[in-house]
C-alpha cells in the first residue's frame, strides 16, 4: 500500500506542478528561488489566458477541438461498417484487409511526415484542418477497427439471425440490433481517437504553419526556450486539456488495451 501511494505520487506530481504553476502570478512563475505554492493565488489566469497577447491560445484550443472532433467523426463513419462486416462475414479478401489494418498500426505520422507534407502540398491542403482530420482519422483507424471488431464478433449469431428472419436488411441489422449491443466498444474507439488526435504533434508541426491554425500541442511547444514564456498560461491551458482527457480515459480504462493489442494476448 505504501508502494502504491508512492507510485501514485510520482505519476501525479508533474501534473500537480502544472496545476500550481497555472495559479501563480507572472513574476511568481519566474521567481528565483521558486516557491512550491503560489505566493498569491491567481485563479483568474484561467480567464485571462484566452485573451493573452503572447499566445493565441483560444485559436489553438479551437483548432485542437475542430481537428479532434472532425477526425473522430470521420473515423466513426468509416470504421463501423468495416468492423461490423469483417466480424460478421467471411469473404475473399478479408485476410488482406485485416493485414493492411495491422500494418497501419505500426506506421505513424512522424515516420511519414515528409511524404504527408509533399502529398498535401500537391493537393493544396497544407495548412488546413482538413489535412489533419484525414491524417488523424487514418492513423487511429487500426485501434478503432480492432476494438469494434472484437465487440461485433461477441454479438451472438442468433441475435443477428433472428433480425434477418424478421426481414431486416444488413444495414438495418447493424443499426437497430448491433449498435445497441456494442456501444461500449464504440465509445472506447471514439474516446481513444479523440484523445490521440488532440495529442498528435509531428504531422501537425509540418502541415500546419499558421500560428492561429495550430493545435495546442504544436503551439505550446513553440514557446519552450523563449525568454518571455508565459508559463502560467501554458500550464493553465494544459490543465484544461488534460483533465477531460484523463476523465475520458478512466471511463474506457477496461477496454484500452484490447484495441491496441489486437487480441494477441490471451
Amino acid at each position, binding site marked *: 500500500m505504501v508502494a502504491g501511494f508512492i507510485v501514485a505520487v510520482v505519476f501525479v506530481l508533474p*501534473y500537480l506542478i502544472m496545476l500550481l504553476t497555472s495559479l501563480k502570478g507572472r513574476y511568481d512563475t519566474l521567481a528565483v528561488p521558486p516557491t512550491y505554492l503560489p505566493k498569491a493565488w491567481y485563479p483568474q489566469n484561467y480567464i485571462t489566458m484566452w485573451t493573452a497577447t503572447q499566445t493565441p491560445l483560444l485559436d489553438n484550443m479551437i483548432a485542437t477541438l475542430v481537428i479532434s472532433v472532425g477526425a473522430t467523426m470521420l473515423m466513426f463513419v*468509416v470504421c463501423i*461498417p468495416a468492423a461490423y462486416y469483417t466480424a460478421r462475414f467471411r469473404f475473399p*479478401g478479408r485476410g488482406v484487409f485485416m493485414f493492411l489494418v*495491422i500494418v497501419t498500426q505500426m*506506421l*505513424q505520422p512522424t515516420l511519414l511526415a515528409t511524404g504527408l507534407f*509533399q502529398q498535401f502540398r500537391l493537393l493544396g491542403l497544407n495548412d488546413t484542418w482538413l489535412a489533419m482530420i484525414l491524417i488523424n482519422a487514418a492513423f487511429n*483507424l487500426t485501434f478503432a477497427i480492432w476494438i469494434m471488431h472484437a465487440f461485433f464478433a461477441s454479438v451472438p449469431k442468433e441475435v443477428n439471425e433472428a433480425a434477418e428472419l424478421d426481414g431486416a436488411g444488413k444495414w438495418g441489422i447493424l443499426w437497430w440490433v448491433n449498435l445497441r449491443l456494442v456501444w461500449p466498444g464504440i465509445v472506447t474507439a471514439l474516446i481513444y481517437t479523440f484523445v490521440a488526435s488532440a495529442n498528435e504533434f509531428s504531422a501537425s508541426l509540418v502541415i500546419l504553419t499558421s500560428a492561429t491554425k495550430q493545435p495546442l500541442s504544436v503551439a505550446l511547444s513553440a514557446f519552450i526556450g523563449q525568454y518571455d514564456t508565459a508559463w502560467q498560461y501554458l500550464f493553465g491551458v494544459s490543465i484544461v486539456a488534460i483533465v477531460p482527457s484523463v476523465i475520458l480515459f478512466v471511463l474506457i480504462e477496461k477496454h484500452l488495451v484490447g484495441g491496441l493489442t489486437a487480441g*494477441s494476448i490471451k
Partner: protein
Amino acid sequence: MAANRRPWGQFLRAVPWLVPAAILIFGVVLFPAGYLLYNSTRNIGLSGLDVGPAGISNYKALLARPELPSVLLNTFIWVAGVVIVQLLISLWLAQLLNNQFPGRRWVRIAVLIPWAASVVMTTMVFVYGLDPYYGIMNRFLVDVHILSASVGFTQQPVPAFITAIAIGIFISVPFTTYVLLAGLAGVPPEVLEAATVDGAGRARTYFSVIMPCLRGAIVLSTLINVINTFNNLPVLKLITGSLPGYPDDTTTTLMFKILQGEHSIGVASALAAVNFIIVLVVVAIYLVAAKPMRAVES
C-alpha cells in the same frame, strides 16, 4: 456452404462496407509511404517543388553528413534505454497493481494520467521544473539533499539526453503496465495454486509460472514501444532541441531538423526512407513473433 460457391459475389458484396476504410488507409498511410520513397530519389526544391530525378544523390548527401554515426548511436541508446528500463519498471508496477490493496483504483487512475495527457504538455512541465533557476523540481532535489545545488539538466548534451530518456520512460510506463495487467489477468489461478502447493517460492513462481504467461504481453508491448519511442519527436525536441549541433539527435529528430531547418526535402525523404526500412523490419518481427493474424482467423 454457399460461401465457397460464389467467392466473387461475396467479395463484391463486402466492397461497399470496406471501401471507405480502404480509401483512408491507401490515401493517407500507404500512398504517402510510397511517395516518400519516390521523393527520396528526386531533386526537390526548397518550396517542395520536384525539379527532376536525383538518383541516389540524396542518399549520398545523407551518408556524407558527419553527425550520422553519432545520430545512429544515439537512436540505439534512446530506443534501447527507454524500452528496457520502462519494461522493468512496468513489470514491477503491474505486479503491484495486480494485488488487492486499499486505494488500488486511485493508483491505477494516477498511472493512467501520462497516457491520456499530451506528451508535449508533460514534457513542458519537466522543462520548466528542471530549470536551474526557477525550476521547482530542481529546488525539491536540493531541499531533500539529493543535490547540493541546482543543476542545469537540459543545458549540456549528456544530462539533457539522460533527462529525455527518463521522460520517455515516464510516458511509456502506463501503456506497458496496462498491457501487462491484461496479461496477468490471463494467468490461470489454479496454476498459481498448484505452484504454491508444490512449495515453489515467490521468485520461483514468478519466473517459472507467471513470466511464461506474460510472454505475449511483453513481446507485443515491447514492439509497440520500440516503434513509439523510435518515432518520438516531442520529448527530444523540447528537451534537447535548443542545443547547438546534433549532440542528442536521433534519426527521427534529425529528419525533422533537415526538413524544417534546412528545407532539404529530398535528403529528409532519404532519411525517412531509412527510418521506414528500420520500422518495416520491426513490423516483420511483430508479425512473426506476436502473430496478430491469429485473432482474425479465430
